[in-house]
């Protein structure tokens, strides 16, 4: 390989990503306080979910506001699979993913032809239907779900039952986050990635250059549903309790979208960045401000979302870009990789 090609390969970006990975893996060793590992786990799971949502909401630009339902489906299938003695929750988790993909296909198929708002409405409608069914019935298909009370997962601590120590969960979710980022990057830089961006900006033009628009939207939605379900299964095993109000909550479904949009939807690092920054702010606010000010923290998110949508649709990621361009501009760097840097 010629020298320049080599140089291109090990660009600072790759070194940086590697450094970030090493640091993330070392984090539980540096900070052994289980309390902070606990916060890190919560932040990581939201990074994971927002990145999963980003595939359909960010890359494909289809606002699946009700996609939180797949988190619930993944959680319930994994727990019931184990509880009814079919096998280990790991298999249940994958089964949950498959079932979520099935539901995602059934619901999204008809409404990908319709305009954006209808797709969001259909996903939220499905979320409500599943929530009412779970809350309404004490057992579904003969399996004990005891409605609103949720299901408790007995503590065994064995990894076969998807239960690990504090650090164990940290690493499992970190690995899942890395995997979803790899998957997102593969999508982003592949044919599917370009096709999704084309669909996102101009659906009509996309179809006349040979893009099967409904098919690619469907692929994005199915991948997103599958990943959300896996995350749901691991999350409830961490809490040792499946509460329908939590996993099928409309707030959770909204939150994973808000973190992604505020972070910068349609980018690789946006959702992770959004979930990380907002997660940590949320945690510190909750501890410092105490209980009665807590709802203000959530209200803050709503305001942040409105401001971001109005002034920086690209999210914090775009703000980061603007910041860098200003610094670069003021530094007066002579050699710049690209002739003309346009900020959209």
């Amino acid at each position: 390989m010629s020298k320049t090609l080599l140089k291109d390969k090990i660009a600072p970006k790759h070194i940086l990503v590697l450094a970030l990975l090493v640091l993330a893996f070392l984090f539980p060793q540096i900070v052994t306080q289980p309390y902070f590992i606990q916060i890190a786990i919560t932040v990581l799971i939201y990074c994971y979910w927002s990145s999963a949502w980003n595939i359909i909401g960010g890359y494909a630009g289809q606002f699946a506001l009700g996609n939180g339902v797949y988190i619930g489906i993944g959680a319930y299938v994994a727990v019931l699979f184990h509880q009814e003695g079919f096998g280990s929750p790991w298999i249940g988790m994958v089964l949950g993913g498959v079932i979520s993909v099935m539901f995602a296909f059934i619901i999204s198929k008809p409404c990908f032809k319709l305009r954006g708002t209808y797709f969001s409405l259909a996903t939220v409608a499905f979320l409500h239907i599943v929530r009412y069914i779970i809350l309404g019935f004490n057992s579904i298909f003969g399996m004990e779900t005891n409605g609103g009370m949720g299901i408790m997962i007995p503590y065994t601590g064995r990894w076969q039952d998807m239960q690990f120590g504090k650090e164990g969960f940290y690493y499992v979710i970190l690995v899942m986050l890395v995997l979803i980022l790899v998957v997102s990057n593969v999508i982003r830089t592949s044919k599917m990635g370009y096709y999704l961006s084309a669909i996102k900006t101009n659906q009509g033009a996309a179809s006349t250059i040979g893009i099967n628009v409904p098919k690619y939207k469907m692929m994005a939605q199915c991948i997103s549903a599958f990943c959300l379900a896996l995350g749901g299964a691991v999350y409830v095993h961490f809490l040792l309790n499946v509460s329908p109000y939590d996993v099928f909550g409309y707030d959770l479904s909204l939150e994973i979208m808000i973190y992604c949009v505020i972070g910068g939807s349609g980018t690789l690092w946006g959702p992770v960045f959004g979930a990380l920054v907002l997660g940590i702010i949320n945690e510190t606010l909750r501890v410092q401000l105490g209980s009665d000010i807590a709802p203000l923290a959530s209200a803050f998110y709503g305001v942040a979302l409105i401001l971001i949508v109005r002034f920086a649709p690209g999210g914090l990621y775009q703000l980061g870009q603007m910041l860098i361009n200003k610094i670069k501009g003021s530094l007066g760097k002579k050699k710049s990789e690209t002739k003309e840097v346009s900020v959209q």
Partner: protein
Amino acid sequence: MKKLIATILAIVMCLSLVACGGPSGEQSQEPNQSSGQEGGETIKIGVLYPLSGSTATAGNSALWAVEWITDYINNELGGIQSMDGAKIELVVGDSKGDSQVGLTEFERMVNVENVSVMFGFYNTAVTNTLSQYCIANQVPAIATNAVGDEAFSQPNDYVFHANGCNATNTLFSNQRTEWMREVIQPMKKFAYVYDSADYGRESYETALANMEENGYEEIVGIPIEAGSADFSSQILQLKNDPEIEWVQPSMNMSDAILFVRQMKEYDVALPIFGNGGGFLQADFIEQAGDAADYVFSTSMWFPSMWETAWDTDFAQTVMDAYYEEFGYDFDESASCAWLGFWCVWDALERAGSADREAIAQAMAETDISGEHYATLLSGSKTVKFEDREGAAGVMVYNQNFDTPVPWACIRDGEYRVVWPEELASQEYEFTWPIPSWDER
């Protein structure tokens, strides 16, 4: 250009990750199963209640009771005598009724603040999660309210429950049926209107399981959707079936208000035996107005029960202090916290040390009866943590089985306990049957 963005982003992330680790200050390397501080002049107790969210009212009421008792122990009783006057220090956390937030607070209390005992929980979801984590981390805990059985369905020697859960409450309600049978005759069929939330469903299931035992021929189950906008169709069902003798609704307060109002609107004068929750909360009577008249309500505690306390002046001072703070009477959630926290005090006195194992041992041996602070403002007259089978064959561990759940009738704006006799309020003479709406 892309490379630079990633760099900035990464640095920010590293900073925030490290920042996460920063403020913890002392990098306590203690192993997870720390035994709590040795001796020293304070004992830390972790108190976790839903201080915001939909169950915030009950959470704050319970917290008030815990803080009042702590102040009383530290100042009036001079701290824990068996630990030469060690003071109790409360580490308070808000679970927001959500298990994930509860778990985060649990970690802070158990590993950062190093509490010796965990206390509270209240919501079923939070109790399910934290009872497991208390067992795993070997931290003694007393849960209050938390009526779901599942959290106590595992044999362990760390998590105790002083006030009743469904399994124990229903045992008691079976005895209650004898009284209703004498009063209401013939009592063949009643309707159970339950919302799909928490204990509504479970108490209906248990009632069904005990149907034959209690001699009912039929229980009509009418599920409703919590927070629904209208109950007219359910009330029509009640009105349409003349055999139904009385109705037992179990729902949150805003639904309960709407329910009794519509019962009045549709002139359905069926006796209403409200099952906890909505029919108990402080301002249910005030907001429901005269529609709440003659409604029966069951709870582990009614304000009028202070009359039967063994030291009425002491009970009165506490009730007045509570009234001053909240503007309404000492409620069930405060009473459960009262019972539970005095059990913690009782265990600390017997354990004589802040060591978690010793406290857990002491809690297991709890045997309270007679004139004890714990039973002052609570229906339970004795406290003993047993592993026994509750109602409908549900096995529960470390439960207090003396948890009476008396009936009270709402008459001119007040809860008046009518049964059992030893807890009944003196002023109110119980009459049956219930007059129809226009006679009221």
